[in-house]
C-alpha cells in the first residue's frame, strides 16, 4: 500500500517562529488533507489540498502532486498551535479509504 511519511517527527519552537512541516507519499493520490489534533484528541481540518496552494490566516499549504509531497507552513507560531499535525492521502485505487502519516508533534513555547 501507499506509504506516507511526515517530517520532522517532533518540532519545538519559540512563540513567533515560523515552521515547515512536510508530507511525502509514495504513489499518486486523489486527495490530501492536513489536520491538527488538539489536546483533547479531536482532528481539526486545516486544508483539503490535492494540488496547488491554499492559505488560511497564518497557515498555508502547498501540494506538488507530480513530485508526491505536500508542505504545511505555520508563520508567527502561537502556543495554541501546539499539538500533532497529520497528513492523510487517498488513492483512486482505494477510494474512500485514507492513509495517515505518523504525524508531526509541534510544541510552541511561550
Amino acid at each position, binding site marked *: 500500500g501507499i506509504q506516507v511519511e511526515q517530517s520532522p517527527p517532533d518540532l519545538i519552537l519559540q512563540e513567533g517562529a515560523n515552521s515547515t512541516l512536510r508530507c511525502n507519499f509514495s504513489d499518486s493520490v*486523489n*486527495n490530501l*488533507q492536513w*489536520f491538527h489534533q488538539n489536546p*483533547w*484528541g*479531536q*482532528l*481539526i*481540518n486545516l486544508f*483539503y489540498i490535492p494540488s496547488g496552494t491554499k492559505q488560511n490566516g497564518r497557515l498555508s499549504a502547498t501540494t506538488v502532486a507530480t513530485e508526491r509531497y505536500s508542505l504545511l507552513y505555520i508563520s508567527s507560531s502561537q502556543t495554541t498551535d501546539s499539538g500533532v499535525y*497529520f497528513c*492523510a492521502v*487517498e488513492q*483512486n*485505487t482505494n*477510494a*474512500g*479509504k*485514507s492513509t*495517515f*502519516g*505518523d*504525524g508531526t508533534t509541534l510544541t510552541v513555547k511561550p
Partner: protein
Amino acid sequence: DVKVTQSSRYLVKRTGEKVFLECVQDMDHENMFWYRQDPGLGLRLIYFSYDVKMKEKGDIPEGYSVSREKKERFSLILESASTNQTSMYLCASSLRLAGGLAGLPDGELFFGEGSRLTVL
C-alpha cells in the same frame, strides 16, 4: 458547518462487556468511517460504509462489527470488549463526490471529537 457527533467522550468498561459507540453526522454524507488511534501506531481504519446497510472491512476489523441502519448514523460494536481494545476511537464522514461508484475519489474527511475507551 459539518458536524460529526460521537455519543461518549470517555467510557470505562469491563472485559467481556458489549460496547456500543455511536456516531451521527448532519451533512447527508454517504461515507462514514471508524478509526482507532494508539500511541506509536497512528490512525488505523476499522470499518467504513459507503451507504445505508453497507459496510466494508478496514485494516483492523477483528473484534469489531458495525451497523448503518440510517444514513446519518454509524455504530461501532465491540461484542466482547478486551483490554487490547483500550484506545481512542475516531468517527469520520465524507461526501461521495462521484455519485456513488466505488473506485472514484471522495471528498473532505470530517472527524468527531473522539471517544476514549478504557477496558479494565
